[in-house]
């Protein structure tokens, strides 16, 4: 488990460590199949050594984006640059083998007819013969599998296969490594460990990585930045904190963690909704608009209050925390995390409040807003037509 020793073995850093040039740049990259756009005008710039996670519902274009970067698909428009070199553009298309992009797949895609060492050495055919053996043992040390060099893929466990796949992708020192749901075929118990090891290796080698996942926790915990994709577009590209705490859209808010939406109103810099005043919004003094407020369960406080019209309708025990679902007078529900010592049985009347110092996200329509809309009269809650005076 000592990754420090592995560090010392690294004699070479990846070539993408020129800090001034982005390791990967997408500009307006688009791909359509027939008339349906698979991805639509992607823009991204990844700094060297950055680890970016990519998440979205299935069919959102994650795989297509990876394939465009890897060169497995020709973009219909836009360009892809890797370590400063244009690999796909209007007049240029570099095939995958010329791109210095490593790929790690969910099914590992190890060559079944080659040993572990041969798999790892596969990408080293352009480097001097003398250095290959050393490089193979180097990367196998890195993933702590030097003792399995002679095994065939079918003789490996899932975790071992995953690490071999990573070692194989890293061996040629790619500018970018793309990891396509690399942990999803692993057992839950194994996953956290393999993930931690993988991230450690990527960090140590300073490798730029794009990791596709469908696990929100993974996306938030692993990435320097998180890309949330939907319908072929990037809904938000941001740090994990901002993606979670300041989601850009209703979709991001609901996809990245639990969220409930309540209709709310801002008047005189005070945000109120069904459960009362939520917070004050400096800078909204003159605003008088309808919005939706995003409430995360950890921001919602409960207190038994027989006078309240809100009732607990479900209680889920999660070990350290207990998730309460509360039906408000309007019939809407909100959820609340409570410490495991607190349990309000189903049917309990509870007062619902928002935890102090909460700065909840506000939505106008499906988009987040942080300042009052310029023409407040145009911002209204769906279904209401109340004009708001300036």
């Amino acid at each position, binding site marked *: 488990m000592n990754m420090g020793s592995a560090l010392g073995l690294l004699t070479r850093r990846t070539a993408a460590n020129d800090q001034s040039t982005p390791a990967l740049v997408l500009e307006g990259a*688009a791909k359509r199949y027939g008339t349906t756009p698979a991805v*639509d005008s992607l823009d991204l710039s990844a700094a060297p050594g950055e680890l970016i996670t990519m998440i979205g519902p299935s069919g959102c274009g994650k795989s297509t984006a990876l394939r465009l970067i890897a060169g497995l698909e*020709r973009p219909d428009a836009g360009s892809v640059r890797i370590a400063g070199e244009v690999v796909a553009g209007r007049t240029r298309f570099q095939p995958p*083998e010329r791109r210095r992009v490593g*790929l790690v797949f969910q099914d590992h895609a190890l060559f079944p007819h080659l040993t572990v060492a041969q798999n790892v050495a*596969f*990408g080293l055919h352009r480097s001097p013969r003398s250095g290959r053996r050393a490089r193979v043992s180097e990367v196998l040390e890195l993933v702590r599998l030097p003792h399995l060099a002679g095994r065939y893929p079918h003789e490996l466990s899932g975790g071992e296969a995953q690490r071999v*796949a990573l070692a194989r992708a890293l061996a040629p020192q790619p500018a970018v490594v793309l990891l396509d749901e690399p942990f999803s075929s692993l057992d839950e118990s194994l996953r956290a460990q393999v993930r931690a090891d993988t991230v450690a290796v990527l960090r140590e080698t300073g490798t730029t990585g794009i990791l596709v996942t469908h696990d929100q926790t993974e996306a938030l915990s692993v990435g320097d930045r998180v890309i949330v994709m939907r319908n072929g577009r990037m809904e938000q590209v941001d740090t994990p904190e901002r993606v979670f705490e300041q989601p850009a859209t209703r979709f991001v808010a609901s996809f990245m963690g639990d969220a409930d939406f309540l209709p709310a109103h801002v008047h005189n810099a005070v945000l109120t909704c069904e459960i009362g005043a939520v917070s004050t919004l400096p800078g909204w003094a003159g605003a008088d608009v309808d919005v939706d407020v995003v409430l995360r369960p950890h921001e919602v406080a409960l207190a038994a209050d027989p006078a309240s019209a809100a009732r607990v309708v479900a209680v889920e025990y999660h070990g350290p925390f207990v998730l309460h679902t509360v039906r408000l007078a309007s019939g809407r529900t909100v959820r609340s995390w409570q410490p495991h010592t607190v349990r309000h049985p189903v049917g309990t009347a509870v007062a619902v409040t928002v935890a102090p110092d909460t700065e909840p996200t506000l939505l106008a329509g499906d988009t*987040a807003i942080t300042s009052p809309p310029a023409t407040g009269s145009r911002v209204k809650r769906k279904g209401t037509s109340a004009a708001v005076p300036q």
Partner: protein
Amino acid sequence: MSEAAVTTQTGKAGPSRAGRRGRHGFPGFGAGRPLWSFMVFVAAAAVAVPVVAVAVDGVAGLSGADLPRGLGGMLLTTLGLMLGVGTGTLVVGGGLAWLVTAYRFPLRNVLVWLLVLPLAMPAYILGFIFLSVFDVAGPVQAVLRAVLGAEAGIAQVRSLPGAIIVMTLTLYPYVYLLARNALLEQAPGPYDAARTLGAGRARALWTVLLPLARPSLAAGLALVMMETLTDFATVQYFNVKTVSVGVYLVWKGSFDFQLASQLSVLVLLFAVAVLAGERLMRGRARFHQRGGRGQGLETVRLRGWQGWAATGACLGVLGAGFLLPALQLLWWAAGELATGPVPMRAEQFADYLANSVALATVVALACALVAVVIGHSLRLGGGALVRGAAQLTTFGYAVPGAVIGIGVLLAFAVLDDLLEALGVAGGTGLLVTGSVLGILYSYTVRFLAPAYQAVDASFAKVPPSITRSALSLGAGPARVLARVHLPLVRPGVAVALVLVSIDAVKELPLVLLLRPFGFSTLSVWTYELARENFWEKAALPALVIVSLAVVPVFFLFRQVHLTENRRKGH
């Protein structure tokens, strides 16, 4: 909350920018490699040239000649024959595959591969033997008459059902082979799932294994259908007037080659329907085999009479399709050797044998090579156009051999004229029509389909991520082919080599038509004797053909056997 509004990263100028930059690359090529895609087009063109030459010749000569009487009947008969042989081979081939895979019974380990042997028996030989044994003058009916009286007999041997039986007996191994591979290489997961959901073996077979084996069955069936379509010898023995018979009738009987080529376009349409059907069968489903965990199909020991009944069923099919005909050939050959002068032309025999073996080997290698290149190119990407071209390369199998032969002649006559017009003295100098090169070319055109089907099936089992990994590791297409694809599709290549070499050893019309002076093969020798009705004399070369074809069948068995052992564990 921060001061700046959070903006989404999706570029607002997306569509218009896309429009301005235009499409990258060539439509229809996908991300494929121009060079490799080009090779697929070359292969497709090479196959298409003779076929198109015949079609053009046929259409150009639309003489207004009456279509042969009973064309409608021919179409119906063709349909009926295809339906019958299709059902027959599915039941016999699929059933036997299930039997030897799911059960253990006496002699099973030997029967597993013996059951492939009927592939080695040319249909034209089996058809004749079948008739001479079962027709009115043959021993079976004689015995029946002796036992049951003068009126006894088999209703009508020379009939559609008779032809269906004989063709089923020679062609079922295609389905058997592919079905058995499909059963063996089945990912065990779905089967186990079905069993745990309360399905018995039979239900799991019908609801899970069979649907999963469907692409393999369809591929086998497509081969059977194309063989059925182009068969001329068997159907003629059995007096079954298919469109192929119509082709020969108007060609040889009415001296109207153009009408014949028009009819062969009709045969081609049938083939297109068969191939389209096969594609439809595959449908949108994808059948990349994933390993998965589980036991999979477990073999059950059949005891007592059940075991022997299974053995009997296998032996029955094998006996009718191979053992008895081979014995009959042996009998005739022995009789010939005992009585008359030895019909074996010793000095030429070595030549014929060498020619047959060399031709079969070279053609098998050529077909396998082209098939691998096509499969590889498709793997590298390549759009609908390339896929269409790849499909086109299988059409040669659906065109009667003699028609391809003429197509090759016509095509090279045109090429010759072109060269001469361009000032090349003597043109091709008939380099192709009168040489082994022409034979090799036409064989490759004709036998690309079985090679492609086998290799394609193997490629289907290689997950696309393997190819992508290899490319992303910096291996160019050639290196991916050599180091990754070729080793992984080796089983398919082996099957391709075997199927093509068997077909090539048996092939007659092409070599007959295109061979240069002094070039002869065993099949030509057989034909020359058979054509004079010297069936007993023809038995000897026929036997040699059969035993030659047994050699690759044996290798095929080894391949299947290895696969099975690998599957069982090490």
